[in-house]
């Protein structure tokens, strides 16, 4: 194992696996969250949030997800430092734009910006739902009492344009991060060849556009509607 973690490909494997794991989470997260804009009474989203909060599978996955985030974030800084050391004298003049995209070269920058968003996001919602549920209202849907998660989210999005813009930018940044990260993850795991490389790149682009639009349409909906 130690040999695996000191080898460049082994190290990248950790990034690829954790990244693709987070991709699955984002797909699930967006699927649940998009319900926010389909039912203004909030019942649909509240039921979904309640299901996610009580489902045993989700309960097991929750700490794993936390570990996934930590590994992906901390490991990225370590790897970037290793890569940075591989070129002690930098070039005076570079025309990097000719041969690669800005996004692919700046995954750490994009990732760090997404991290800033993530910290604020977790504190605003996850933290409140998980550790301070008393501060939330409760509703009764279908005879079952549950936290009014819809009011928490909708309330924040209605409270200030700044929050809406912050969440829109966050979604877009995540989209850019994924536009390279999605196919790059597969490539790193060796799950690509001359046929699949372009397919994965196109799939990655489609997925990142869905993620960017999907997540930013929610605050946009509240911004325009209320």
């Amino acid at each position, binding site marked *: 194992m130690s040999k695996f973690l000191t080898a460049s490909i082994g190290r990248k494997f950790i990034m690829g696996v954790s990244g693709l794991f987070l991709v699955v989470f984002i797909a699930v997260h967006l699927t649940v969250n998009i319900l926010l804009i389909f039912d203004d009474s909030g019942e649909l989203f509240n039921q979904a949030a309640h299901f996610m909060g009580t489902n045993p599978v989700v309960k097991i996955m929750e700490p794993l997800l936390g570990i996934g985030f930590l590994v992906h974030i901390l490991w990225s800084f370590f790897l970037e430092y290793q*890569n940075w050391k591989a*070129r002690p004298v930098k070039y005076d003049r570079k025309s990097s734009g000719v041969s690669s995209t800005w996004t*692919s070269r700046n995954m750490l920058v994009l990732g760090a910006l997404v991290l800033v968003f993530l910290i604020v996001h977790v504190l605003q919602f996850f933290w409140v739902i998980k550790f301070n549920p008393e501060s939330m209202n409760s509703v009764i849907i279908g005879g079952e009492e549950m936290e009014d998660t819809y009011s928490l989210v909708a309330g924040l999005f209605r409270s200030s344009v700044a929050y809406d813009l912050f969440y829109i930018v966050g979604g877009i940044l995540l989209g850019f991060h994924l536009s390279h990260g999605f196919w*790059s993850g597969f*490539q790193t*795991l060796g799950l690509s060849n*001359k046929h699949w490389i372009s397919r994965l790149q196109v799939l990655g682009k489609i997925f990142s556009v869905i993620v960017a639009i999907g997540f930013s349409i929610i605050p946009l909906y509240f911004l325009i509607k209320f």
Partner: protein
Amino acid sequence: MADKILKKLNIKVWRQKNAADKGRFETYTIENISTGSSFLEMLDILNDKLIIDGQDPIAFDHDCREGICGTCSLYINGRPHGPDTEVTTCQLHMRKFNDGETITIEPWRAKAFPVIKDLVVDRTAFEKILRAGGFISVNTGGVPDANAIPVPYEDAEESMDAAACIGCGACVAACKNSSAMLFVSAKVSHLAKLPQGKVEAKKRARRMVAKMDELGFGGCTNTGACEVECPKSISITNIARLNREYLLARFSE
């Protein structure tokens, strides 16, 4: 039709006496360069002028001057092998430049490729990687009958495409991480795709990657810059194959 003449060019070039010297940029002016001359011919003309003026000529690597040996290098105007595609520096022509332009010439920059003098870097690291596993040690016997070992057409083609690598190091120079993954993956792939090379495929991937890491090359972040800048257009799908070969080798231990 006669080639156009570039009346004046400013050549900003990296000068470094030896490996220990700190090095610096010097700018030279050169006049009346034909657009039909190659980039290296332009440097030859500049060097002639420097010698006549009693100065030390600029050291740069070159050999075959027909794009097959992989000896020439040079990071020109921010790109390995300069502003042309699928060519080495020796095949780059002055028609790619404009009159009055300042051309910046730097050596390959990587910890694993230390500068020896001026624009010459030590690429022994590539040789070391090859020596670690870029060969076939099984006894293949005498010349077999042509049809005795069937090789699918696709495999032969992919193997030959990977074998086109001339080991110039442009991939390392182009990569933001100074990664040698394209080079190593090409060397692993051209053998792994053929029957004789398959036998040691796992061992080869493991050893060559270990050597590559030891020599201080960075990791691959899949920017794809190497493929674009490679004079032989080696595909990054080879990198996916190397990742696969390496991971399978590791997991099967």
